[in-house]
């Protein structure tokens, strides 16, 4: 991709530029925040104390990353309350993959989900390392470091669950239900705005290219484990528009969501509302000062 000129700081962006930066930040922040919300449901319910702590640790990492991205949205004048605690559920832009509820005890779902998600996270963060927007570029390195553990964790579990027939079946069931939702990770928030994100060099690979990168990584891996990745047969379906894939009814990115999301959002904002809060307490330094 051609070298793009660096964008100015938040105060000096044109409206079009700011809209593009915002869409990209919402993709990142909302994914991390909602993924973490779901992971925390496993606390005291994971198969062992150790797996509980490992997943809780990953959830904490993701919340920390969400915080870094929401902080960049605050550059534009939004408050944490507006971004998280008081934002309409219909306005969120995370992929439907991260909002899906877990069936009780379905650990394979947590593992497959984090595998699919963290591989996608890996390719999309690489496409931001050279972002034309300095505020994004500067935060990537910190986040990338923590992501290695997430992928290692998911893969270690995937490989062990795949060793036996029962485990493999559980993985397959989880994959069947999650794979279409994982594809929405690469769905556009809005075609025109996504094109602008690419044209401005805020992201150095397009969503289609990222989806290819992701499929190149996950499909052979899953098949080696003995899993069937049905409709993601490659390479015939390369370079096709998203609609060629069997996508779920709701994409998340376009602010349409599955019912499970509205219940989850209701739940995590409940205490805030019950206490009659209007702003969020801050217990940590601003990431720019830390």
């Amino acid at each position, binding site marked *: 991709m051609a070298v793009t000129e660096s964008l100015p700081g938040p105060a000096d962006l044109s409206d079009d530029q700011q809209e593009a930066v915002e869409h990209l930040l919402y993709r990142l922040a909302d994914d991390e925040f909602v993924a973490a919300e779901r992971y925390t449901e496993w606390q005291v319910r994971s198969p*062992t*104390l*150790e*797996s509980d*702590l*490992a997943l809780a*640790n990953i959830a904490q990492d993701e919340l920390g990353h969400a915080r870094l991205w929401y902080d960049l949205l605050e550059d534009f004048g939004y408050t944490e309350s507006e971004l998280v605690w008081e934002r309409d559920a219909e306005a969120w832009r995370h992929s439907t993959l991260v909002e899906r509820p877990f069936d009780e005890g379905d650990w394979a779902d947590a593992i497959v989900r984090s595998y699919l998600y963290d591989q996608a996270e890996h390719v999309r963060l690489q496409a931001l390392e050279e972002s034309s927007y300095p505020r994004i570029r500067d935060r990537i390195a910190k986040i990338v470091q923590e992501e290695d*553990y997430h992928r*290692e*964790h998911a893969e*270690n579990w995937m490989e*062990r669950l795949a060793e036996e027939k029962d485990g493999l079946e559980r993985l397959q069931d989880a994959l069947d239900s999650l794979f279409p939702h994982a594809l929405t990770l690469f769905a556009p928030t809005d075609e025109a705005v996504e094109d602008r994100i690419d044209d401005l060099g805020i992201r150095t690979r397009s969503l289609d290219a990222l989806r290819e990168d992701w499929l190149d990584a996950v499909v052979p891996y899953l098949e080696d484990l003995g899993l069937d990745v049905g409709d993601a047969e490659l390479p015939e379906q390369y370079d096709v528009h998203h609609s060629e894939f069997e996508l779920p009814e709701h994409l998340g990115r376009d602010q349409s969501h599955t019912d499970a999301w509205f219940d989850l959002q209701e739940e995590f904002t409940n205490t805030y509302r019950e206490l009659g809060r209007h702003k969020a307490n801050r217990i940590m330094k601003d990431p720019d000062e830390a």
Partner: protein
Amino acid sequence: MIWEVFRQEDAGDYHEHCGNVHAPDREMALMFAEVQHARRKPTNSLWVAPKDEIGEVDTEDAKFGGTTDKSYRWASTYDFEAAASEVEESTNEQVEAERRRKVQQDKQEAQGGD
């Protein structure tokens, strides 16, 4: 399966026992140990070892240190006149070994630091 975990704070330090984790194999044990024993404390290295592989002898089985005066085993006990040359050499050797260990450690730290 239980794995005992040993944490080393800085290069050159001993690995000290810090707890254990349940895990089916070594790779998973290391992965869990990382979260439980290295995230909140400065850590340079972790070891895990299967609990069953660790040998133990305790005070029920042995009299550590014995019951008689063992001070004759210490070189310093013989330091009653002008230092015997053997004592002096031994002391100097220890000082020199300690110095080299520190230099080595500082060097490793400096390399790890940039």
